[in-house]
């Protein structure tokens, strides 16, 4: 899946429970009730989902982990992760125009 337009934000009602002692974050998706364990990389990408389009998200992820990966490797990680998140309803893709009228959700 690719995301040429649209922005990413957490799904409505999403709940997070960081478990730093296990280096993971638990995520509850009430829309399709399920509980997931995110590893630290996936958790970081989720924390970056604040309504940016894909390219901005990829750049922000790269800035946080450079120089450990190339820009392309970082971009691939983010894309693969977002594909997975969208399938699991952890993250939703929002048209940019609609995003401006709504606030942040999830905790």
């Amino acid at each position, binding site marked *: 899946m690719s995301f040429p337009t649209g922005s990413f934000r957490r799904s409505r009602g999403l709940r997070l429970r960081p478990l730093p002692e296990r280096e993971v974050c638990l995520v509850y998706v009430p829309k399709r009730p*399920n*509980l997931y364990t995110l590893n630290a990389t996936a958790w970081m990408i989720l924390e970056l989902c604040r309504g940016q389009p894909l390219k901005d998200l990829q750049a922000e992820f790269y800035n946080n982990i450079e120089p450990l990966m190339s820009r392309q490797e970082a971009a691939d*990680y983010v894309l693969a992760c977002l594909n997975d998140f969208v399938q699991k309803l952890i993250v939703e893709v929002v048209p940019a125009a609609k995003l401006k009228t709504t606030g942040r959700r999830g905790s």
Partner: protein
Amino acid sequence: MKSRKHLELARRLTLRRGAPNAPSAKEVPTEVRSNSFVAIDPPPKVDTTYAVGNVVVEWCFRVPHGQLRTFVAFLADNEAMIAASCERLMKGVHYRGTFMITGDGRSEFRTYWGYDSSVTEKQWEAGLADPNSNFVRAVRQLRTYWLQDPNASHRHMALGALLGDAALGPFFKFTLNTAEGMAGGTPSAAARSGAARKSGRK
């Protein structure tokens, strides 16, 4: 602000492994075999292959100037054999080289042994079992140079990043607790204070 704190925490945990692992979001397998149980694996051990050893032993000694050339020739002839013998005879014990401090003219040397863990030192019993082996003769010769120096030192060091997990020993822990108490409490105690807990009192 909570999200910025969480982002920083996630970033820290991502980077502590070196190169980030591929992102994964796995369904949590909650099992019921009596009570319910959420299976959350403990984090993998930190990869410390970047380090000389998880425990490092250092021999520090001076070689008299008159013996310097002989000693350097001894190292050239024996170091590779010592290193290879360690790998064959003593699991988890690694010879990391003998280095001279250059520039000050004092002919001071440091020999480094790296251990995979604190219990690896017991492997020396196997390594030193045959007194006539090439390995033992070479180590004996190396140690003789150390013995000749009345000011020689022998130090154990543990990798700092692992000290949170490894047993510090009761007296070291006691010292840490005392120091933290002097400074006004441990970080975990502060987190448990009323300010940090969401109160449920009536």
